[in-house]
């Protein structure tokens, strides 16, 4: 069974000025425990595909299987359940609730996933955030915030991680630290990872790579 398998995906959306076609028959496959990099310039559909893969956007045609479930067969509530317990999502920024401390954020995410939140401090330590649990997001650096976001995701024990430009707003040094942590814990937990990035170096660290600019476009 694959983590994610997509075939013949077609997606058009209304951009206000008329329909914009993003995908005209995209196919991809991600075996469990492996990582896939989505590359391509802005507007090539990276974020759209990520949204589709976590059920936040619908598709026009094709077949999308996520963690063994057919995207079209799932209701929105079932999608929500899937995201809640099995899919971890990391955005470029603003992954944390600003009014809660780092520890509270991790606890909230773990709680939603139905995990015990006992090891919150362990996760902070594992991601190099020891002693920062009582800080609020605006009291730590951008790199620390992204590592906290990773702690949240891995604390829930996901089967699939979707990371949309997770280092996009960080400097190179910090970005390396964050991506190191990402790949380390992905491998440790054996979950699938789809990573959207225009950073080819980062993409190169994944097991597979798909260039959306070249793939499945009209």
């Amino acid at each position, binding site marked *: 069974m694959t983590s994610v398998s997509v075939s013949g995906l077609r997606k058009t959306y209304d951009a206000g000025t008329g329909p914009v076609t993003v995908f005209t028959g995209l196919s991809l496959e991600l075996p469990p425990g492996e990582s896939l990099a989505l590359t391509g310039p802005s507007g090539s559909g990276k974020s759209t595909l990520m*949204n589709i893969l*976590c059920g*936040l*956007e*619908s598709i026009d045609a094709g077949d999308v299987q996520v963690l063994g479930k057919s995207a079209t067969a799932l209701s*929105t*509530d079932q999608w*929500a*359940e*899937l*995201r*809640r*317990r099995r*899919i971890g*999502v990391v*955005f*470029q*920024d*603003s*992954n*944390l*609730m*600003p*009014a*809660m401390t780092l520890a*509270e954020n991790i*606890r*909230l*995410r773990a*709680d*939603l*996933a139905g995990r015990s*939140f006992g090891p919150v401090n362990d996760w902070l330590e594992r991601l190099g955030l020891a002693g920062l649990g009582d800080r*609020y*997001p*605006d009291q730590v650096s*951008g790199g620390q*915030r992204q590592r906290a976001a990773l702690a949240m995701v891995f604390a829930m024990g996901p089967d699939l991680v979707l990371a949309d430009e997770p280092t996009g707003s960080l400097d190179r040094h910090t970005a390396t630290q964050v991506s190191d942590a990402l790949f380390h814990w992905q491998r440790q937990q054996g979950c699938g990872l789809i990573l959207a990035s225009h950073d080819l170096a980062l993409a190169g660290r994944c097991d597979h790579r798909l260039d959306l600019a070249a793939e499945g476009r009209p």
Partner: protein
Amino acid sequence: MIFRAVLSHYRRHPLQLLALWLILTLATALWSGVWTLTGQARDSMQAGEAQLSGGQQLAPEDGSPVTVDDFVSLRRQGLCVIPWLEVAPTDARGRVVGIDPLAMACAEGDAPGAGMALDGEPFVDIAEAARLAESGRSARLRLYLMDGEQPLPAGWHRPPDPSRLSTGELADSFLLNLDALGILVVLVSALLIRSVYTLGLAQRRESLVLLERYGITRRRLRRCLLAELVILAGLGLVPGYLLGLRLADGLSGGFGAAMDNLFETTLLTTGESTTGFLVTLAVVLLVVLWCGLDLLRGGPAQGRPRFHPGLATACLLVGLVLLLVAGSLVTVFLGTGLMLAGAGLLTPLLVVRYLTPSPWAPPLTLWRRRELGVLSGRLALPMVALQLAAGTVIAVHALVSTFEDTFHDWLGQRLAGDLFVEVPDDRSLAPVASLLESDPAVAHWHPVIRGTATIGVGSGEQGVDLMATDTRSGLIRRWSLLESVADPWQAVGEGQVLVNEQLARRQGLAPGDQLMVGFGEGQRSIRVAGIYADYGRPAGEILMDRRYLPERFVPDFRSLTIALADMGNGSGTALVSALASAWQVDDLSVRDNDTIHRLANRVFDQTFALTRSISYLTLVLAGLALLMTGWVVLRSRAWYYHLLSAWGLTARERRRVVMTLAAEFMALIWAAALPVGITLTWVLVSRINPVAFGWSLPMAIYPGYWLELLGLFALAAVTVGWLASIGHDGKPGTMPVQAGGQER
């Protein structure tokens, strides 16, 4: 050019511009509406008062009858006096009133309500009436002064007409409270405008910073922003002012019609008054200045709201002390202002500090509480405004309800019985007493004898009004007493007296005290059996049983109060005829209590309705401002609500969470408004009145009304929550654009 750049923000956010303009316009409408409505409520109160008390009559101070020469002499002094010759009815012809149309010409074009339409029966030319009077019918000449503003000539006064009703001080007190309300409304709406404005400004911070980087000096930028605000206020002023007038018109339209029907006069004229417009303009200017103050001082306040716990506590304490020791209205108002300021400063602080949940609360609850903290911080100003507005509404409701109840009770006491018959001069009560006792149509009756007495104060004496009656009467015994000894009516029946509240407060009298009362022939020491409320006038009064009046007491006025067993079948008219023939007079002066009661109720009910509508308008404005600001703030949190979706909350769950959040926020404001409302009620009812008039109204609170208000708040919460949670289902929100984007 810069101006265009400054305004470019609104090209992207036209709704914000619309919201700011809307709040300016609506606030202006509220001010002009309140100005007009308070004016109308005042007019209606005064007109009603004048109608009820009939204060236009002019009579010689020495009590001598009015003559034609008096009329001529007053006219020669330049007073617009009109004669009124009332001729008693006979079997052949009804009551006739002689008037002089030539003399009445000077009253035309006077204040509304002054002119009279006296057409046809019973009005005839005064010469015709005089002829009837000479033919043997009894007649009485009265003079009415048509210009109430003129000083009275020496030797003349407006006689207190005991057959009429004076609401004097009760009305004054109500009007004073109405003024206080008007000031509160202005304050609250100013807070609202400022909150909407500063919120909008905060959102434009980035683009303003950008312009500054392009080399535009901060001073120029501020000038542009100020100009923008002034223009916007100007654009809102005229439509707002007109809207306010229309609003006031609409609210009072029914009232005007009712008054027309009642008095055949138009008492209310709503119109564009220059004063009203200037007042509105001045308020708008002041508020713009207040908003612009920040700009002139150096940009909008940045960062988190600052709390001033020390200042807040100081305000509250000093305000409370001032209220408690206040000896003048200014002090009361100052104390109230400080209390309100303290409450406004303290509330956001309390919310943020003491609603912090335990870190071990369920994580979603924790999240909601933390968001609540954010909202309370960001919406501190509109929140306080709504709190004060709701507090005002609660206080006004309590005030109006209290006044209403007091009015009704008091009217009920004073207008007890169905008929009120003046006892003709030089006639004794004896011939009618047996008649009244034996007539089956009479259920209860008692005489009322009014005069003056003196009371011993220190070593001297002081005049007070005296009311003597038959205290065994069931009608009198219905009077409710503020304080009394056990079985007070029994005590009064045995010779003790009751005193009114004014006298009791002034002399520090309590039930059981001894009072020296003089009736012109030496003093008697009498025990005070109780204290009754008496709102009509400032004078002190004592009430006693008439059996204990000295033999030679000379009353100023005597009357009979009669309750009929059955009002229906003309028994009243028959009884009055019987009384007239028993006294051997042609005509009796009779007051129909029921008519006056209904008249009074209609007049005052309308006044109260107007007052309530003012407070509701304020609440609507505050609610609207909170909706707008709340919506903007919740929109700015949209990304985080989207994050909840990404974390696996279903759309329904997310909506529920956001709505609960909004509901908690509203409930918080509601709860914070309660102490403000109660305090304001207490100030209005128990502090302002004793200071201004020497008597207090009973303080009452109306929890049922609080619940109604809570319902209203719940509705607002549902609306805000719904607005904030729609439009994001399935669609991701935009990430916050601020660098870091993690502002708490």
